[in-house]
């Protein structure tokens, strides 16, 4: 049962309307406006030229896309954008595949050692990434993975969190469905892929959203493992760009906007799924 099943209307009948509600609403709304102010300031400054930057009005006097033209002109940002997309998509696909495969196996198969495997994977949740970074760096160095897509991606190809989440969801899939497929003579892989997976799509989308967002904004590991500018992901590229710009704020804001706008657009298009996905992951996780 998903938490959204109960309609809003039903809930609101439970709370009687009184004048205080208008006050509450106004406060909530103002709070929300404060929340997005930094984003609005960033976007608005990216449309200003250098002489207007310190004019604190939110609506630019003469908005122009010139900064974007300058920032995008040498193709660096496009390259970083592309790198981020490649890395985030590959890691997300890998997580969706492996985390659910493992989660399914642990939820639906009976075998000796199952609990041990589950505990072992779960225990990795306790190990902070920072602890693994030095060994990973050595590993990447000796295998020649430094400064490559694979080098950026390999630590995150599977996660205990995703596995745990998927296991929780596969446990809610009735065994009868799977038995019926077995009777039909499907092999176990096909049963998982064709029968079980479609039954947990909300969980899969939640996992995908989290993994994608996590990798899209990842900073620490890509900072360490990338060398050449061509391999930077967007956050690393932006950070180096900001330093290199010697504090030209309008340019930095333009770069920051370029890093932010894509996720904002995706959110506006998929708001319902994303919010539901976050709720699901939060509740089961």
């Amino acid at each position, binding site marked *: 049962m998903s938490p959204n099943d*109960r309609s809003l209307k*039903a*809930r*609101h009948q439970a709370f009687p309307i009184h004048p205080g*509600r208008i006050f*509450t609403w106004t*406060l*909530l709304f103002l709070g*929300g406006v404060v*929340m*997005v102010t*930094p*984003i609005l*300031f*960033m976007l608005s*400054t990216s449309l200003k030229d250098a002489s207007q930057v*310190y004019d*604190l009005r939110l609506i630019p006097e003469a908005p122009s896309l010139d900064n974007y033209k300058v920032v995008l002109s040498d193709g660096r940002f496009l390259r970083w954008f592309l790198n981020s997309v490649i890395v985030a998509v590959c890691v997300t696909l890998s997580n969706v595949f*492996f985390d659910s495969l493992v989660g*399914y196996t642990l939820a639906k*198969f009976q*075998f*000796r050692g199952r609990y041990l495997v589950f505990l072992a994977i779960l225990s*990795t949740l*306790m190990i*902070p990434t*920072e*602890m*693994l970074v*030095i*060994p990973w*760096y050595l*590993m990447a160095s000796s295998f020649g993975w430094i400064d490559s897509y694979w080098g950026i991606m390999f630590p995150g*190809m*599977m996660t205990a969190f995703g*596995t745990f989440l998927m296991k929780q969801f596969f446990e809610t899939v009735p065994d009868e469905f799977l038995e019926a497929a077995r009777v039909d003579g499907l092999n*176990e*892989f096909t049963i*998982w892929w064709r029968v079980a997976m479609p039954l947990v799509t909300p969980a899969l989308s939640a996992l995908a959203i989290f993994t994608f967002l996590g990798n*899209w*904004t990842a*900073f*620490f590991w890509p900072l*360490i493992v990338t060398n050449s500018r061509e391999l930077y992901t967007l*956050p690393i590229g932006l*950070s180096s760009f900001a*330093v290199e710009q010697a504090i030209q*704020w309008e340019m*930095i804001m333009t*770069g*920051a906007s370029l*890093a*932010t706008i894509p*996720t904002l657009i995706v*959110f506006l298009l998929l*708001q319902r799924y994303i*919010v539901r996905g*976050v709720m699901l992951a*939060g*509740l089961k996780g």
Partner: protein
Amino acid sequence: MTTALSARYGLIRGNLSLRQKRVLWAWSFLAVPIAFYSIIRFWPTLEAFTLSFTDWNLLRPASFVGFDNYIRLANDPLFWQVFRNSAVYLLIGTPVSLVLSFVIAYYLDRVNFMHGFIRALYFLPFLTTAAAMAWVWRWFYQPLPIGVLNGVLTWLGLSQQPFLRSTVQALPAILAPAIWAGLGFQVIIFMAGLRAIPLSYYEAARIDGLSELAILRKITIPLLKPTIVFLVVFSSIGFLRIFDQVYNMTFNDPGGPLNTTKPIVLMIYQTAFKSMEMGYAAAQTVVLFLVLLVVSLIQLRLLKDH
């Protein structure tokens, strides 16, 4: 040869019970992941422990130094400063963001008019990239004549504040964007938790004549305990591992001024990747691991009490 093998294989297969076959399937599903977790998670964990007992620094071969790195850490005033900073990030960040997000979620849950829009306003910062927004906030905190916040302060007739140039204000100033970015996520989780509480509980309470405050205290908060514990664990770990904001907002003087904003991850980063003292850095990661372990265990204990 090959035919003989496949014949034998066929024989074995034929002899397997359905149950055994499924066990085989299970292990074949787990083969790659087990290899992954062994090579990418467990082996490096052991290696980090091992490295922490060496003086390895990339330039010369490692030699075993026993507990030297840990002794050095215990005697390093910077480490204790960093430890304190991390604790402050945690002890301010977690309660502030939890209380704020609960209040917002509690009231937002009752709002019907433009509910989705207001929720989106709170949620949007969660989708931003910390490294990008750190620069936006860094600009906000600049002194006059360019700083946005100081511009507002002086416009209001107040005196300008040093923010990132202060040993007192810098840490909260860096914490603010971290809280800001995580708030939307916590609001959503709280709302999910609130909705999971059966309405009949509230109705029964109202029939009993309980006030709104009493309902909140006696029904809502106790029933939200799993959600609260989850969020406390989740955000504590997040604040203990803060890095992106600090790295970008104090780029010229990392963790400054005077190390008052330096969190443990930044110290690890600098020790390992700037001073190249890998052994010493590994010891720091082990300490971070232990701290996280203790914090998680305490919090899991709280969950158990429930």
